[in-house]
């Protein structure tokens, strides 16, 4: 069934993409690699440094601390946004104008420029005149400018507000793709809402959840504009994530070699994590596992019956 034609002329179709990506990614990356091994005082005066910069980066306490913050941030973000996104997607209306309105409203935070998000939350979190700050101040002292925990809390809340809609939209699309026959079959078998979710929806959502997980991981690991505008990395260094640090080293300290080495390590870390996610999540689809499409209600029903029967 899954007989893709072997055809090396397909390379011609891929060529434009390869050219574009070479131009926008490979050449710049080679420049970065070139910088990472030499200290440039002026265009004519350079000193070969070998792997010294990499060693500096790997032992720099500020960078290690920022890396840990990134890890904690991404973990928290995924732990909140994925379940919340699924819940919102399940609650979204499916039909009529309400569905259209819901889609537009849910998607709005995604198209707000990142600096606007930062600006909005910066005012919103002010303890004297911001709604969030004032509201929390009723219960306990809240000061985003001086209390690290408050700044962190606001940063997480801001990201949840900003990006959960992406997860919700992807999951919503995944849910819509499930044929009605599956639900009918589950209903005939008297499956509870929980087991419908566990045995019908979740397996079908696997793919979109993988995409959501990967996108959210990558983007939360690279987050820059929002925390930069919200707190500038402060108070102290409490919200200083890696990209803020990288921009400081590259643009403000103008330490090109160190910044380049940092960039490469940063890039590599994201790639490794993403590759692990990708591999783990697609384990049982390999190699070239076929996806069955256009299934009849009967076979869907059998599937569900088997799954639910198996769980009893």
């Amino acid at each position, binding site marked *: 069934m899954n007989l893709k*034609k*072997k*055809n*090396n*002329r*397909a*390379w011609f*179709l*891929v060529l*434009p993409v390869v050219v*574009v*990506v070479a*131009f*926008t*990614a490979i*050449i*710049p*990356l080679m*420049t*970065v690699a070139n910088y990472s091994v030499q200290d440039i005082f002026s265009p004519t005066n350079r000193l070969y440094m070998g792997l010294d910069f990499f060693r500096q980066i790997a032992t720099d306490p500020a960078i290690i601390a920022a890396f840990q913050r990134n890890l904690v941030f991404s973990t928290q973000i995924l732990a909140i946004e994925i379940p919340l996104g699924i819940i*919102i997607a399940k*609650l979204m*209306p499916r039909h009529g104008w309400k569905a*259209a309105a*819901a*889609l*537009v409203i*849910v*998607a*709005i935070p995604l*198209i*707000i*420029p*990142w600096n*606007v998000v930062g600006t909005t939350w910066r*005012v919103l979190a002010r303890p004297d*005149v911001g709604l969030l700050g*004032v509201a929390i101040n009723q219960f306990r002292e809240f000061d985003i400018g001086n209390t690290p925990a408050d700044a962190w809390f606001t940063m997480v809340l801001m990201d949840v*507000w900003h990006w959960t809609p992406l997860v919700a939209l992807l999951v919503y*699309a*995944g849910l*819509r793709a499930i044929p009605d026959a599956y639900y009918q079959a589950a*209903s005939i078998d008297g499956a509870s809402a929980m087991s419908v979710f566990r045995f019908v929806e979740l397996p079908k959502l696997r793919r979109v959840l993988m*995409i959501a997980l990967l996108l959210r991981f990558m983007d939360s*690991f690279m987050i*820059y*504009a929002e925390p930069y*505008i919200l707190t500038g990395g402060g108070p102290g260094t409490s919200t200083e994530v890696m*990209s803020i640090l*990288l*921009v400081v080293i*590259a*643009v403000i300290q103008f330490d090109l070699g160190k910044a*380049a080495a940092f*960039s*490469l390590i*940063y*890039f590599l870390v*994201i790639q490794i994590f993403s*590759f692990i996610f990708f591999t783990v999540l697609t384990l049982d689809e390999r190699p070239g596992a076929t996806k069955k499409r256009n299934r009849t209600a009967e076979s869907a029903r059998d599937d569900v019956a088997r799954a639910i029967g198996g769980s009893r």
Partner: protein
Amino acid sequence: MTTQAISITRIAKVGSYFDWRSWVFWLIMAVWSIPLLWLMSMSVRYNEDILSVFEIIPSRISFRAYAEFFNDPLWYGALINSLSYTTMNMVLSVAVALPAAYAFSRFTFSGDKHLFFWLLTNRMAPAAVFLLPFFQMYQALGLFDTNYAVALAHMLFNVPLAVWILEGFMSGVPRQLDEMAEIDGYSFGRFFITVFIPMIRAGIGVTAFFAFMFSWVELLIARTLTGPNAMPLAVQMATTSSATGLDWALLSAAGVIAIIPGVIVIWFVRNYIAKGFALGRV
């Protein structure tokens, strides 16, 4: 037969219950829209009020900020800049990604899997990594401080994403369609443009939306590659501060205006997002 009858009555009953799901959803959305409403309210308040008085409903309002936005060429020019590079990027990304996605969905060729994953890795590159080389490269090409530079640079993350999304949609179109077209004597180009592309227009809509979105909201690269001539809206907003401090009302008004094009794009693809995703694997 009996079980079916029972389940149908059960379904019918569920429909007549109080629709708590819908209520919970709209409640969540109400909470979700608070920051946005806050932004809108800031844009019509007086600067001296914004940072001194806490009020949920503004006691006095003015549309000065909006008037200023559309009278200052710096501001509306920035809006036009943003719109032009975003549109260019969207069109280019989709155009380049279409044939590639077709190749990935229809053929196997040497190194296809590696190429596909490698493309995705570019989506994982932190923008900060590319700042310096981009700056030097576009300056050497004489494209620095033009909309073309930003449009091209944003293809870095949009092309891989476009290939990824489109490939999913294309895999949802049966391969028999291609074969039948071939038997009917369609040339590849004619088939692709007159038959295949209309088939996946939903996918193209969704892809265009994502390309637009990621290009529209990006700040770091856009800031690095532009000077005063091609300054995007986001950068104009980030740099706006005067001796008297930030003009919060104007900043908020610009923020509200920056949301509008996105809302229009979402409105166009709303049905595609809903139905469209179902076609592909996404």
